[in-house]
């Protein structure tokens, strides 16, 4: 048998407005390959084509060689027999990929039982051993609904790899995880090539590609832009697109301009603020104040109360303790940007209609809209569309437009760019900061990415410190 575990030659995918140009690659034992790209680059389709799970309407061509056996990419069904035994797929959203009515232990045990043919009891023991090895001892009797995102990812990993498949394909394994949990998953994945398997990772996260190492292929709209060893490609990219992509990483953003020296009165101030949720203290004795044009960043792990803090300042949530003082005057000058742009608009009306409603309600100046739209890079033709019919980045800029028309003094931006692609994210945030400074609007920006906050904000607030410290222990448990 050759040393190559997976060989892909001249793989193309076609159908329904999608074309993936021919891709070739091969993965040897211990090899690791990362497909890196933004939304719409077709990176997930390549994984689906290898597995043979392309959605209806798409067809693949080309040749695959898996552990020395040749397969035609077009005949996806032929590879079903390999699932779990030779090809393992780590699903995108582990929380949804686990059966909600079956306990974690049983979901891992069934792989041992039916794929490796172990008896009921030995399968169960093997599952308990796997889970304990992943730092999940005692979690076997839990239902998926009782697991955290990171735990669900590890259970899914155990279930997918219990069959002993040498080739592991991980499709966006870090989606929706914060930085420490992301690093834990990367460490988990890196174990496969260390044990002599091969790892194919699909991600949009450059940091994941960097930490995994091996070979990287950068994809854009179905074409290979650049490929090469991770260290080389990610430090000295040859193509413009890769350079842009790398520059869009928060750590590489230009250093922020010095904060404007202002002696103005704060817009909003809080003293001794405290909030509990579900019997747990989110934060207590918190002091902060925001002056006009000032940008304050809030970081912390998921569930640490970042969003709640902003809602308290806006008056959308009730505080348990402490004082909040807001600049007197308009209530309407306190506005919010949302994480998921489509969720912040009624999907049934055109943007022109929604904008017109706002103008009428507050007798705004219609002439102010066109220049502002031009500033935000919004094409007037988009006005005829509904919120669901434009891209997330465009819609978020519409949300900024809508908010700016209200002449805000304080803006709470709750992870406004976390669902956007990196380049769009950088451009959107740059615009937001620029406009906020210009209009003397204080911004509280929430993000789970400390590097981003550091590059954008004048002040930084870290919530849930102890929580953050607990994660590295998890990591230690993962050193299998």
């Amino acid at each position, binding site marked *: 048998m050759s040393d190559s575990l997976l060989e892909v030659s001249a793989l193309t995918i076609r159908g329904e407005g999608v074309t993936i140009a021919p891709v070739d690659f091969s993965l040897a034992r211990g090899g690791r390959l990362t497909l890196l790209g933004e939304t719409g680059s077709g990176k997930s389709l390549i994984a689906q084509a290898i597995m043979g799970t392309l959605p209806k309407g798409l067809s693949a061509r080309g040749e695959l060689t898996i552990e020395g056996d040749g397969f035609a990419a077009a005949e996806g069904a032929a590879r079903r027999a390999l699932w779990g035994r030779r090809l393992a797929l780590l699903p995108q959203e582990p929380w949804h990929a686990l059966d909600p009515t079956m306990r974690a232990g049983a979901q891992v045990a069934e792989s041992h039982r039916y794929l490796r043919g172990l008896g009921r009891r030995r399968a169960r023991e093997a599952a308990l051993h796997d889970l304990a090895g992943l730092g999940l001892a005692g979690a076997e009797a839990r239902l998926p609904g009782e697991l955290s995102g990171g735990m669900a990812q590890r259970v899914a990993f155990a279930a997918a790899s219990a069959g002993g498949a040498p080739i592991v394909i991980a499709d966006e394994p870090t989606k929706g995880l914060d930085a420490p949990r992301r690093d834990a998953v990367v460490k988990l994945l890196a174990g496969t090539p260390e044990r002599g398997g091969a790892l194919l990772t699909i991600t949009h996260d450059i940091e994941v590609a960097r930490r995994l190492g091996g070979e990287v292929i950068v994809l854009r709209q179905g074409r290979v832009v650049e490929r090469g060893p991770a260290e080389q490609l990610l430090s000295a990219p040859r193509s413009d697109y890769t350079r842009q992509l790398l520059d869009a990483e928060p750590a590489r953003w230009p250093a922020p301009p010095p904060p404007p020296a202002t002696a103005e009165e704060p817009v909003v101030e809080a003293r001794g603020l405290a909030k509990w949720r579900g019997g747990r203290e989110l934060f207590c004795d918190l002091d902060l104040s925001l002056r006009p044009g000032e940008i304050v960043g809030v970081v912390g792990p998921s569930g640490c109360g970042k969003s709640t803090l902003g809602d308290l300042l806006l008056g959308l949530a009730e505080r348990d303790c402490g004082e909040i003082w807001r600049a007197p005057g308009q*209530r309407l000058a306190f506005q919010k940007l949302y994480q998921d742009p489509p969720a912040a608009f*009624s999907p049934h009306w055109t943007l022109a209609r929604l904008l017109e409603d706002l103008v009428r309600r507050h007798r705004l100046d219609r002439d102010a809209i066109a220049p502002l739209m031009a500033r935000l890079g919004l094409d007037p033709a988009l006005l005829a569309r509904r919120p669901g019919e434009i891209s997330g980045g465009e819609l978020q800029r519409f949300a900024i437009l809508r908010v700016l028309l209200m002449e805000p003094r304080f803006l709470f931006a709750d992870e406004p760019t976390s669902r956007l692609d990196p380049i769009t994210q950088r451009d959107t945030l740059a615009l937001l900061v620029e406009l906020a400074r210009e209009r003397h609007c204080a911004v509280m920006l929430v993000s789970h990415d400390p590097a981003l906050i550091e590059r954008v904000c004048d002040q930084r607030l870290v919530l849930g410190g102890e929580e953050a410290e607990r994660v590295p222990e998890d990591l230690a448990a993962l050193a299998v």
Partner: protein
Amino acid sequence: MSATTLFTAGRAGRRRLATRQRLGLGLLGLLLAIAWLTPWLHDADPARQQLVRILELPSLVAPLGTDHLGRDLLARTAAALRLSLGMALLSVISAAVPGILLGVIAGWRGGWVDRVLGSLADACLALPGLLLVLLLVAIAPGNFWALYVGIALVLWIEYFRVVRARTRVLVASPQLQASRLLGFGPGYLFRRHLWPELAPQVLTLAAFGAASAILAMAALGFVSVGLRPPTAELGLMMTELLPYYHEAPWAMAQPILALCLLVLSLNLLAGKDPR
């Protein structure tokens, strides 16, 4: 990928009728036309008995034949359709209006208002619908209004529950919060956010509700505890014509067919499979 999912979500949000709903609408239109145009085009009293002309085959004088008492069947079927449709419309409107109103209030306000209204709905649902209607009908036998009150009392709950659940989700949603922060009042929030979400569901409920109102009235007529003869009512007509199945199968078939088409048209109009 997120761009495509956004797009489909937007398309689904638009109000357009599916093919089966259009089919149902067409069929319903046809039945409405038969029900209300017949008295204009065909001059016959649905209650006039002509004992010399019993169980006649369809002819030019009586296009759908006559029944066992010599009454004109076209006139009777049309009258029965008018009665059924009238009852359906009346009970749907009087169930939908309070149901939607209370549902929005309960979902919006939450707290004790929600609990009180919720228990009220649960109390109305404690008995299966037809049993409640039967008991009300027992108090006032043969009375159209007792029947109507009973049916409306059963139907409003469905609107209430659906509207309350949807409203509760929407009130907590970012889209509503965003519009509130932008200074819009409750009227606007209802018009732009709530109603477009509720309308398709209310249409579905209204069509199903109309069908159940029609079925309930016919069922009670069929077991002779609903409206009294000589009213032309579909269920009652079935019972009356049942003994003459052998001599006049076409007569027997008419109320059954009319009822089935009516219910079928409403079920199609409702669009979705049950819930």
